[in-house]
């Protein structure tokens, strides 16, 4: 009887375990202060969470986004799972105002933290997690001619290229670039 009660108690503990305690499937990137973290929260834009200025569309992609956890804390979503300098807004914006379950990496060694969201799905869902790879699709849709060529987006993005053309890779002018490239 005691063994049966113990098994029932153990089962109740498992059922009552919070989502954050579930095992993360996040891939390690070997980052500073890296902590795999899977949790549920509500998608919000940061300006809304901090100042109370809250458009229904979370800024329509022009505001940075975050997650409000059940304890009231705010998580800054800064990165998606792609390795080519891509943010997480395109992956989180479709869930604006909704609760989601995310899995990813919290990074940062000090008090300042940033979350890399690698997987997302609606909270309470049994749906397969979606990898956060929408950024390059959004870029390709807005640059259809460039997307067809082989180089990665950051080598051909017109806004980046125009600034490098004007100010150089170092941002100090073309002459500084020329000298540095010749001597490095």
């Amino acid at each position, binding site marked *: 009887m005691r063994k049966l009660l113990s098994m029932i108690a153990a089962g109740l503990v498992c059922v009552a375990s919070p989502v954050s305690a579930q095992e993360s499937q996040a891939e390690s990137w070997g980052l500073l202060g890296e902590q795999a973290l899977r949790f549920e929260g509500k998608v919000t834009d940061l300006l809304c969470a901090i100042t109370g200025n809250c458009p229904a569309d979370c800024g329509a*992609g022009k505001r940075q986004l975050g997650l409000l956890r059940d304890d009231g804390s705010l998580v800054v979503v800064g990165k998606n799972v792609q390795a080519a300098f891509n*943010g997480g807004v395109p992956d989180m914006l479709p869930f604006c105002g909704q609760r989601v379950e995310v899995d990813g990496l919290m990074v940062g060694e000090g008090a300042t933290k940033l979350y890399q969201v690698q997987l997302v799905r609606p909270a309470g869902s049994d749906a397969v997690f979606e990898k956060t790879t929408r950024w390059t699709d959004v870029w390709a849709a807005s640059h259809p001619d460039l997307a067809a060529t082989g180089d990665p987006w950051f080598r051909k993005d017109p806004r980046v290229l125009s600034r490098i053309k004007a100010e150089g890779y170092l941002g*100090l002018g073309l002459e500084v670039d020329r000298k540095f490239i010749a001597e490095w």
Partner: protein
Amino acid sequence: MHVVRRFALLILGLLGMPTADAIADGGTRMTVTGEMMDTWCYLSGVMGGAEAVVGSSHHTCALWCAAGGIPVGLLTDDGTVYFVLQMEGSPDVVGSDTLLDVQSDRLVADGIVYERDGNNFIIVEKVVANEGITVLNHTDYGPVPPFAIPELN
């Protein structure tokens, strides 16, 4: 009095000293001075140490990350990273031209700062001064990442 206070804030800001004025909307009005930078590389260490992921070494990567919609921050001399929520009235802080134009530059910025759950945020109301790129570290670290300058590969 208002003019005198703003003048004093400007002077302190130009000296690189944070200046607090008043509480507004739950935040603190301040003038802060620091570099506009890429928060992901700085906080994650993915490209190396903190001293190598700022300034001229990291400028191209900072452009890539800003254009990629990664949050842009303002790094002050005391090491505080302020996530930029708005920039001089522009609501667009996700890959915007406004931010691309000042990446890696050292700014004196008038704005409202907030702290929440360990993170710091800023609404930049006015860029008081732009000193350009002042951290000239490319001869120390080269381009970071190394492939930032294709001619070197």
